């Protein structure tokens, strides 16, 4: 199943946020979206996932999702969006409650998702008892439980410390390794984008337009190797040179706001 951003333009009142953004996320492909602060990255993701109605243009799907997918487009949120009154397993089961699945089927999906995110021993814990990294693992586990075709990840690591970010990045690489699941990964962090994405969509300053689409010239598996690091660093520098001046302008704009 492909996800297509088709000429998406969006305004919040008088404020133009996105301007004619078009690209395609192929089946199993990971596309990162980067750009200066306020360029409309998260807005674009909300539009792609059907949570926000664009002013013009539309998100479109081409092809069928996998037969067992319960929610083809599934978000992983920056702030985790966990139900604080529910345990880990109740949070993971939450999106399955309204489906036609039996309790036994739901239990099996929850077990599998908890196992894949190494949360099995924390099933009875409440979110407040968990660290930020573990909370985001619950968010990922909940997303995996519905067997998505494409994960929509809105800066999923930005609220975490650097060590936890590194650990979760390794988890993302592992979960996306087999190509069975695609992702749109919104981030400020060019290193994360270069490590995870097949292609990187670089947006301009507001209103966000596509400045460039950069293909990462190696497989994700190869990116852990020593000689790949230099290439990835060069790629990050190339993208940074594209957005640096606009990022400075955006920062000044935020400070003056």
């Amino acid at each position, binding site marked *: 199943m492909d996800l297509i951003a088709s000429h998406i333009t969006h305004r919040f009142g008088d404020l133009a946020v996105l301007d004619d953004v078009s690209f395609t996320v192929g089946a199993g492909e990971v596309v990162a979206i980067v750009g200066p602060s306020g360029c409309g990255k998260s807005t674009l993701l909300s539009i792609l*996932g*059907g*949570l926000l109605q664009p002013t013009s243009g539309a998100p479109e799907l081409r092809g069928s999702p996998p037969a067992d997918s319960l*929610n083809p*487009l*599934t*978000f992983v*949120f920056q*702030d985790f*969006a966990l*139900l*604080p*009154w*529910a345990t880990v397993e109740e949070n993971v089961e*939450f*999106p399955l*409650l*309204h489906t036609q699945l039996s309790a036994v089927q739901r239990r099996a999906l929850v077990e599998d998702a908890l196992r894949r995110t190494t949360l099995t021993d924390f099933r009875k814990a*409440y979110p*407040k008892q968990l660290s930020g990294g573990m909370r985001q693992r619950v968010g990922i586990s909940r997303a995996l439980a*519905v067997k998505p075709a494409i994960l929509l990840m809105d800066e999923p690591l930005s609220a975490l410390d650097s060590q936890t970010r590194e650990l979760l990045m390794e988890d993302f690489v592992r979960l996306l390794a087999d190509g069975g699941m695609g992702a749109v990964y919104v981030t400020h962090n060019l290193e994360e984008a270069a490590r995870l994405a097949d292609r990187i969509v670089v947006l301009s300053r507001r209103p966000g337009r596509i400045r460039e689409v950069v293909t990462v010239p190696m497989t994700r598996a190869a990116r852990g190797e020593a000689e790949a690091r230099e290439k990835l660093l060069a790629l990050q520098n190339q993208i940074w040179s594209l957005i640096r001046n606009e990022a400075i302008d955006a920062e000044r704009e935020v400070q003056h706001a």
Partner: protein
Amino acid sequence: MLDRAPAEIAKDAATRRVRFRGAGFVPASSRYGGWIALAIVIAIWQAAGSAGLVNALFLPTPAAIVRAIYQLAISGALWQHLSASLLRIGVGWLLGTAAGVAVGFAIGLSRLARSVGITFISALFPIPKIALLPLLILWLGIGEEPKIATIALGVFFSTAISVYSGVDAVPRNLIRMAQSFNVPFATIVRKVIWPGALPAILAGFRITASVALLLVVSAEMIGAQYGIGAFVLQAGNLMQTDQLLAGVVILSVFGLAVGKLIGWLEVRLLHWR
């Protein structure tokens, strides 16, 4: 090579400890402090009364008040008055709460209900509900109904406000999360909005319990034969200040008991906080 901390730290006459400046401004109280203070006040009160420093007609001693409560209890009058008040509070509170929760949720969830409901609530909430009792007596007669209706009205507005404030305070990201999984509206209300609004709703219950107590006493003072409010008024008219204060103590104990009950509910239902 890693630096390691030296085993001995050199100190001289100029070495001094950094002064601790972080004390205070912590909202914590000692567990028994309040009870001890209360006991001291009662002891002083009793001592002053026993020593004849205070006229018992104006302020009877705590012991006299306890005796009055005991006599009320063994005579059966306590239960007669208390049960009348409890029935009015119970029915009025339940009716007002049920209506308030329904209207509060409607205002919290529906744009139309919000625009209509908030206008009416803003206009009617400030009216002292006891002022409506004569009108309610005119409409409903002189029985229990106007007293219960007064309590229900008072409880309704506070409940509706706390419920829609609670619904408004539910984090939007949780609702968006549920929508992103195609969770139906009714399930979002049941599984996200209701538990998310529950802290505000229970806080509202604390307020409405006090409102109900206030209104039942006021309503009983205006037109009732039985009830704690009627008993207090009657005792005051007869200058039976020990009986009057016995009624006040019973009201205080009732308020405390309701507070404890709501506290227990909060511990049970909001253990996740």
